[in-house]
């Protein structure tokens, strides 16, 4: 046929060519290895280097794990069992595991409560994270904080129940009045909620025994639980504050905008540790004499401030990514500022911002370890303080730090994989 068309250009194919398999050198494992590992001299060297590194790491790790012992009451027992075989002394984990998770003060017979609370987390969080789940599941999310609070801190159930009733009543008042105007609605909501809380506080004081489970004060929280509590509470609290700050920073009112800019830039400009120092050694001066916040509450205040500034920046990005036409369409339909923010702008901006918020959350969660510097016994604080200084376990670091690494890695890696999945999802999502 090539002959044919070389001299007259008209050519029509009569027979179909079937697809042929590629030449053998182009398929199979051989090709994969050649292309992926040994495609050039440089690549070959890199491959060998990489293999050596992997081998070196494994040769150190595997005996440590395989020969390790999980039994014993002190490092001396470990030394006896191991007889210098290079294994790890994982007995410390076996013995101190509850302390690593819950701190040394949380009553041991109550540990099922925080465990349950964190198990419930797996029910409460997905409805927020995965849009495809049915909307009614958000009810679980909404109930969760109150249940979790009750489980972890204990005390009479009246407190969380009335807190919940207050929120619900406030919400209803808000929706009733909102048509009259957003500010009025907000005011009505806050007033109704405050009234309910006040009644709740009154009843709780009168009836402290009603549906009471044993109360655990905040300062007894510790271990990985403390990291989780700080992380979750601070991120949840900082999202609404972050939204307000982000809106404020976009505002045309110089006073509001100025305040938000100064706040955000200030908080982002200083290390978290200095803010924790403030919580620890300075904040007390600025509260009315006699108020005595727990350290944990003060720390929550400061970390919330910290993360809300970062979240505000993320949300600002989301707001900026929204086409101006959306604002204008809202205006031209006659929606006022609060309505167009609530109904049009924020739902979209927040959705865009979720991956960014998740990233801030992961960073913040990691940063909760800094509280160990101000004598709180989170996971790191537990290891550096009571466990390493106890006479039984002086000298076992690797096992403890490895456990800490694993705990953090599992949580953070999980979340960051989620945020990457979400980013892909949002990119392809047409809606």
């Amino acid at each position, binding site marked *: 046929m090539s002959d044919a068309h070389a001299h007259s250009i008209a050519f029509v194919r009569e027979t179909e060519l079937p697809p042929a398999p590629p030449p053998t050198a182009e398929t199979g494992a051989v090709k994969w290895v050649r292309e992926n590992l040994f495609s050039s001299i440089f690549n070959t060297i890199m491959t060998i280097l990489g293999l050596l590194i992997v081998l070196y790491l494994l040769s150190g790790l595997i005996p440590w794990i395989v020969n390790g012992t999980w039994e014993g009451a002190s490092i001396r027992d470990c030394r006896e069992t191991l007889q210098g075989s290079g294994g790890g002394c994982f007995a410390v984990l076996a013995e101190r595991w509850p302390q690593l998770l819950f701190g040394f003060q949380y009553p041991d017979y109550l540990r099922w409560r925080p465990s349950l609370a964190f198990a419930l987390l797996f029910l409460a969080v997905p409805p927020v994270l995965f849009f495809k789940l049915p909307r009614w599941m958000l009810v679980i999310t909404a109930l969760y904080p109150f249940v979790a609070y009750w489980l972890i801190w204990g005390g009479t159930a009246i407190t969380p129940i009335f807190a919940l009733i207050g929120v619900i009543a406030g919400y209803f008042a808000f929706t009733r009045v909102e*048509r009259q105007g957003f500010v009025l609605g907000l005011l009505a909501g806050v007033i109704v909620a405050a009234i309910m809380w006040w009644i709740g506080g009154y009843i709780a004081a009168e009836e402290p025994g009603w549906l009471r489970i044993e109360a655990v004060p905040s300062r007894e929280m510790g271990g990985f639980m403390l990291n989780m509590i700080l992380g979750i509470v601070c991120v949840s609290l900082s999202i609404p504050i972050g939204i307000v700050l982000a809106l404020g920073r976009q505002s045309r009112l110089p006073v509001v905008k100025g305040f938000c800019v100064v706040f955000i830039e200030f908080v982002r400009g200083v290390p978290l540790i200095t803010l924790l120092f403030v919580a620890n050694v300075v904040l007390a001066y600025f509260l009315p004499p006699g108020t005595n916040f727990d350290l944990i509450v003060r720390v929550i205040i400061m970390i919330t401030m910290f993360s809300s500034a970062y979240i505000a920046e993320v949300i600002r990005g989301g707001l900026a990514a929204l*086409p101006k*036409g*959306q604002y*204008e*369409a809202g*205006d*031209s*339909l*006659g*929606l*006022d500022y609060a*309505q167009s923010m609530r*109904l*049009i702008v924020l*739902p*979209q901006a927040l*959705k865009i911002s979720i991956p960014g918020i998740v990233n801030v959350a992961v960073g913040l969660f990691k940063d909760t370890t800094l509280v160990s510097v101000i004598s709180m016994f989170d996971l790191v604080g537990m290891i550096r303080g009571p466990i390493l200084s106890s006479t039984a376990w002086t000298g076992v670091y690797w096992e403890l730090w490895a456990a800490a690494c694993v705990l953090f890695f599992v949580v953070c890696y999980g979340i960051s994989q989620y945020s990457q999945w979400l980013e892909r999802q949002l990119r392809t999502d*047409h*809606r």
Partner: protein
Amino acid sequence: MAALDTNPPGMIVSDEVAIDINNMNKWYGSFHVLRDIDLTVQRGERIVICGPSGSGKSTLIRCINALEEHQQGSIVVDGTPLSSDLKDIDKIRSEVGMCFQHFNLFPHLTIMENCTLAPIWVRKIPKKEAEETAMHFLEKVKIPEQADKYPGQLSGGQQQRVAIARSLCMRPRIMLFDEPTSALDPEMIKEVLDTMIQLAEEGMTMLCVTHEMGFARQVANRVIFMDAGQIVEQNAPEPFFTNPQNERTKLFLSQILGH
């Protein structure tokens, strides 16, 4: 100004004034975008505005809707003077519907929700009723079956028709269009223009920035040509296209009709 004698048949222009713009001036910073605009629109009139890019057409239309503030002169819409009083602005916006070049549908809401949002929140109409109205207008723009989809799932032409329906749901007495077809593929332009023609035939007061000359010929009572922030020429469509007076108009028409 009296109603024009060149009314296309079947369209009624009353004597009532819908929009009255007087000596209006607007600046962006020190840039004078609108200069001494005088324009009176009768109820039922359909006006097409054209002009080169940057001549201030969009700005004029957006001033009427208070999306932009003007700095001098007065705009009176349906008897309500446009001032900085929010109540007046709200009143005017609920009288005036607007369609944008890029539709600006709310992508996170279904078509139905897009259409009922403003009636429910601004007009405080019960949801049920709002949905009935919305369905009515969606039928009018011929896409009732898409009510539960999201804007992203519709073609451009369908989206623009939804945008029109959304405006109509507020039962406006005046509709403003800012290049409603310029972001659309040619096949879709027609379906949108058809919807607009139908609207015109029902007597809606319309101000439309567009370069679709066929449309202008068919429905407009008046064509206004703007350049450099000024109204340079206005006339009924036939004389406007066949016999433009001003040099700039001639140049402009030769460009867009030739191309």
